[in-house]
């Protein structure tokens, strides 16, 4: 083994002497490793971004809705229930009915369809927005049934060409009845929420209004199909949900009838996580394929380069090289090539991942950090290098075991 330095020197000499072939070998390894690191990092980064966004979006929200049985029995949720939920259950910050209606309006920019979300002032907790101008409507607005509304800055621009619209009126028409709503607040999309609240041109303009204002259109809001309760950070969502059902059942004397059902945001998050897992699996498959393709590339170039050097192996053996000496030389060559290729591959992979995430951040308006995992880097590197070394040595071993005259005969 004292000759190890000699073998490394021989290997380096050969690598430098065959620049083209060495480069091609490394290219296979570089592409294999870089593509896996890039694909996995971008995939993980996207999944993480979606996950954290979803997590920000709806924690602590619990939606109660009436089951089919309750609807058949004409059991609804009443404003008094809403009041009781807020007053009697610990850990509840607020509650709002989920009342909605659709209508239309005509402004100087044309005719727009409207989606009106009626609720209490607590509805602002559900927002994925910050208040940009004005303020949200208040408990007094809800109590008095004032026709006030809040909308996003992008919707304001669609309707009026500007988001400086506080104090302006929108004429809302529902079922041929028209009423003016005064704009009291303009909201702005939070940063890093590109996935969840993506809007496009054809979508109706959304107005958030006190549910009591629907009285102006001739219907009284005294029963709701569903309400949303906001639990505070300290409260356990499950406990609050259980308490809510308990309270509702005792108020409506329907214990055990399953009239009131709960959908907490946790359920939605876990559903979304399930979808993300499918996406991640898909990404892993793509990565595995690129690893295999890279590995085959390395294998081919190694096989070719060793085969074309059978004669050299014959010469070395005739001069007294043992099979093990030949193997050491080829092992050193394969190791140097794969290590250098591996390092370059890792660098390109990381750069590529950062670059791709920058591009996605710019194009989607949502910040994505590459989810670089050491296990991915190590896995890809070991796999490619393993293939490189194996297919560098395996044919060399075969050639070294040939009798020297046979190896010398090959050209």
């Amino acid at each position, binding site marked *: 083994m*004292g*000759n190890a330095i*000699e073998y490394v020197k*021989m290997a380096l*000499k*050969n690598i430098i*002497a*065959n620049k083209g072939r060495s480069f091609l070998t490394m290219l296979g390894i570089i592409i294999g490793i870089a593509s896996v690191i890039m694909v996995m990092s971008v995939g993980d980064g996207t999944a993480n971004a979606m996950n954290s966004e979803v997590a920000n979006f709806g924690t602590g929200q619990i939606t109660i809705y009436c089951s089919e049985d309750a609807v058949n029995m004409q059991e609804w949720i009443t404003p008094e229930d809403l009041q009781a939920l807020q007053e009697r259950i610990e850990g509840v910050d607020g509650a709002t009915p989920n009342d909605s209606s659709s209508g239309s309006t005509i402004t100087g920019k044309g005719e727009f369809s409207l989606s009106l979300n009626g609720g209490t002032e607590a509805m602002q907790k559900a927002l994925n927005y910050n208040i940009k101008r004005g303020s949200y409507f208040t408990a007094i607005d809800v109590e008095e049934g004032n026709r006030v509304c809040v909308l996003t800055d992008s919707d304001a621009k669609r309707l009026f060409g500007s988001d400086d619209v506080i104090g302006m009126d929108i004429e809302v028409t529902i079922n041929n009845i028209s009423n003016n709503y005064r704009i009291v607040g303009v909201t702005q999309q939070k940063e890093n929420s590109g996935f969840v609240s993506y809007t496009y041109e054809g979508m109706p303009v959304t107005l958030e209004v006190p549910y009591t204002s629907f009285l102006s259109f001739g219907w009284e809001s005294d029963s709701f199909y569903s309400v949303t309760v906001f639990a505070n950070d300290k409260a356990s969502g499950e406990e609050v949900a259980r308490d809510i059902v308990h309270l509702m059942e005792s108020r409506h004397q329907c214990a055990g009838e399953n009239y009131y059902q709960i959908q907490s945001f946790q359920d939605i998050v876990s559903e979304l996580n399930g979808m993300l897992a499918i996406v991640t699996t898909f990404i892993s498959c793509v990565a595995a394929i690129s690893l295999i393709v890279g590995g085959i590339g390395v294998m081919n170039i190694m096989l070719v380069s060793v085969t074309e050097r059978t*004669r*050299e192996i*014959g*010469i*070395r*053996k*005739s*001069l*007294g*090289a*043992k*099979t*093990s*000496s030949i193997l050491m030389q080829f092992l050193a060559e394969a190791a140097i090539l794969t290590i250098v290729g591996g390092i370059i591959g890792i660098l390109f992979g990381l750069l590529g991942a950062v670059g791709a995430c920058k591009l996605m951040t710019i194009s989607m308006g949502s910040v994505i950090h590459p989810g670089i995992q050491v296990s991915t880097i190590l896995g890809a590197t070991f796999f490619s290098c393993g293939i490189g070394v194996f297919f560098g040595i395996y044919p060399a071993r075969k050639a070294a*075991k040939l*009798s*020297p*005259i046979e190896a*010398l005969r090959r050209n």
Partner: protein
Amino acid sequence: MENLIKVQDLCKIYNPGENEVRALDKVNLEINRGEFIAIIGHSGSGKSTLMNMLGCLDIPTSGSYYLNGKDVSAMNDNQLSEIRNEEIGFIFQGFNLIANLNAIENVELPLIYRGIGRSERNRLAREALIKVGLEKRMHHRPSEMSGGQQQRVAIARAIAAEPPVILADEPTGNLDSSSTQEIMDILKELHNAGRSVILITHDDDIAEQTKRVIRILDGKIVEDYYNN
């Protein structure tokens, strides 16, 4: 003193069975130290097979082969590599230099496999190249040299480690007549310096320049005589 080479009943049979080819058929041969021998025969006569056997490049089917007192016919692959390294210097018809190594690196190769340190190796390789008259070509690659010069590098490689036997397989087969004479002169010098040289050739003119001629035909030695 025992013989340098002693071959007894050496057989090499290809395709044993119905279509067997007896490349060597019970060859007996003794060669002493310091001899200058030509093994001569037509192509297909078995002379290359004999050369491969003597050079420990191939294993005989039967018979025994003692090289420098060691029973080579019973050795395994690794031991044969060692024997080739220590006992034999090869000169091939096709030179068999490694293309991306320069002259001095090619000459150093057998010394590396022998485990000789760098400075000693370099000294021996330089000396050998000076002996064959290539002191000005030490850092040239094979592709930058003529055929005759390449064969001189190969001779330097064969003698650098001072092996007891120099085995030359048609060393002038690829060369023009003036290069041929250069190479023969070097081989004669080596002989005069006390080395044992075995030359395989099909050319009677070359054989005449040696001291002893062994003619081989159909795997058998048919003539064994000394030149005047």
